[in-house]
């Protein structure tokens, strides 16, 4: 623990990097995931095909491969080179590692968001939408006032669990030149071999500080939703 206290600024930097990657990629993944879910339930065949193919391929690819793919092949395939930026936000210098992490996690987590949202919409009774339509509500009104509020209830707990996994997945960036929590643990324990246990405990607690409130909230919400049914 002593090494962590002595390097509090590095620890804070790692924590901020983990949070930054998790939040930015989380928001983007949510948006992309909802779009993918819309593709998968749309009446337009090609969009469904695209959505299904994307989900099947990306969900079955390990995140590490997504990172390697972005780092090693995008420039050769499509000529996109992720620009080197050195801007600093919240004490985190945005280097290539962090940018890769954001892009990779967005593409990866979106598939899980999509599946959760899709099964949430499918969990709404068909009769609800039929009743709404027969009362003369338009498609938009049916969706916004009847289907989505009911889908939302069953979507939130699994969605929180998806984001807990997403937050932990930011750790993969440690292998690809991003200085986040796991990279900090690694660096500090190489520098302070005597304090390895304390360092790992501290980093573990830092993760738990984010993940446990979320997973407990998901559990409680799940109980509440179960009662409401």
């Amino acid at each position, binding site marked *: 623990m002593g090494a962590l206290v002595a390097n509090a600024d590095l620890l804070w930097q790692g924590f901020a990097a983990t949070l930054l990657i998790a939040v930015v990629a989380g928001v983007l993944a949510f948006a992309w995931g909802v779009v993918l879910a819309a593709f998968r339930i749309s009446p337009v*065949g*090609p969009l469904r095909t695209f959505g299904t193919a994307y989900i099947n*391929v990306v969900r079955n690819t*390990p995140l590490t491969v997504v990172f390697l793919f972005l780092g090693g092949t995008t420039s050769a395939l*499509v000529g996109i080179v992720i620009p080197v930026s050195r801007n600093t936000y919240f004490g985190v210098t945005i280097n290539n590692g962090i940018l890769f992490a954001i892009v990779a996690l967005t593409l990866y987590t979106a598939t899980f968001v999509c599946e959760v949202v899709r099964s949430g919409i499918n969990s709404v009774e068909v009769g609800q939408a039929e009743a709404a339509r027969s009362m003369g509500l338009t498609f938009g009104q049916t969706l916004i006032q009847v289907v989505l509020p009911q889908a939302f209830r069953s979507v939130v707990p699994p969605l929180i669990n998806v984001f807990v996994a997403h937050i*932990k997945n930011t750790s993969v960036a440690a292998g690809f030149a991003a200085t986040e929590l796991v990279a900090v643990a690694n660096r500090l324990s190489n520098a302070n071999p005597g304090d390895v246990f304390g360092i790992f405990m501290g980093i573990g607690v830092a993760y*738990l500080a984010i993940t446990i409130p979320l997973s407990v909230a998901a559990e409680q919400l799940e109980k509440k939703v179960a009662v409401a049914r």
Partner: protein
Amino acid sequence: MSAPKHVLFDVPGPKAILRDKIYTGVFSVVMVGLLVLLVYTAYARGIFDDRWQVLWDPQRGGQTAADVWHSMLVRGLLLGTLKAVVIAVPIVAVTATILVIARVSAKRLMRAIAYLFTHIFRGIPVLLTMYFGVIALNLSPLVSVVLGLAVYNTAVVAEILRAGIAALPKGQREAGLSLGLRPLPVLLRIELPQAVRIMLPALVSQIVVLLKDTSLGFIIAYYELLTVTKNNYNYFGEVTTVVFVLTAAVIYVSVNMAVSRLAHWLEGRLSRTRASAGVGEAPVAPPGSVTALGAGYAGTGA
């Protein structure tokens, strides 16, 4: 229209069918156009040159195509990735069973310990546990990978099994107890086998998760498919990165899809058995299968 019956739409009438057809046409053109554009951009960057030759006729250092594929499929996939999976899965089966016993135990202390274990190790990245094994415990990369996989998946599988037990009708447990079985045998011989059966799809998907997580071994220098991939493109030169990373991706996706397909098939099979048996819940699995995943495997053959 082949669109699945869906909560959001009515059965399409003539107007909607026409509209859907137009959209289908438009988006087909857009999708194919994007694909062509992608392939053309790649082509313009010389992606279809002789770099792919490395997969069937490598031109460097007396390596043959057999050597390349042997390194990827045998030393990488079989003796790296799948070895870690095959070691980790039985360990998880046993430890998850123990954890679920503690989690539903009558003793409050046991329950509290199990609750803590579950929440702590579900909330910590697998990679951190693996690094802990390598750096703090001085374990070999293989053991560290297995440690990381086992600890995390124990917590998750135990939760899956607990959900399965919770989904059983109360009468199952009561009947067991009234027959004079003690709580532990009731759990192991009556509740768990049925929970495994209900949760089989989730358990198989968890194997896919575990398989994907072996690739984290790449970061802690465990010799598996991705390490081999990297060694290969370092050896054959920068331009072959695309070749080898894509090959690795195809291998991972194929293996995982095969496992997912298995899960799907099992799901279909289970619902069919249930329907033909004419009862609401799954029939009891053979009494011998007490361990969590072991019973799952026994079930596949039944």
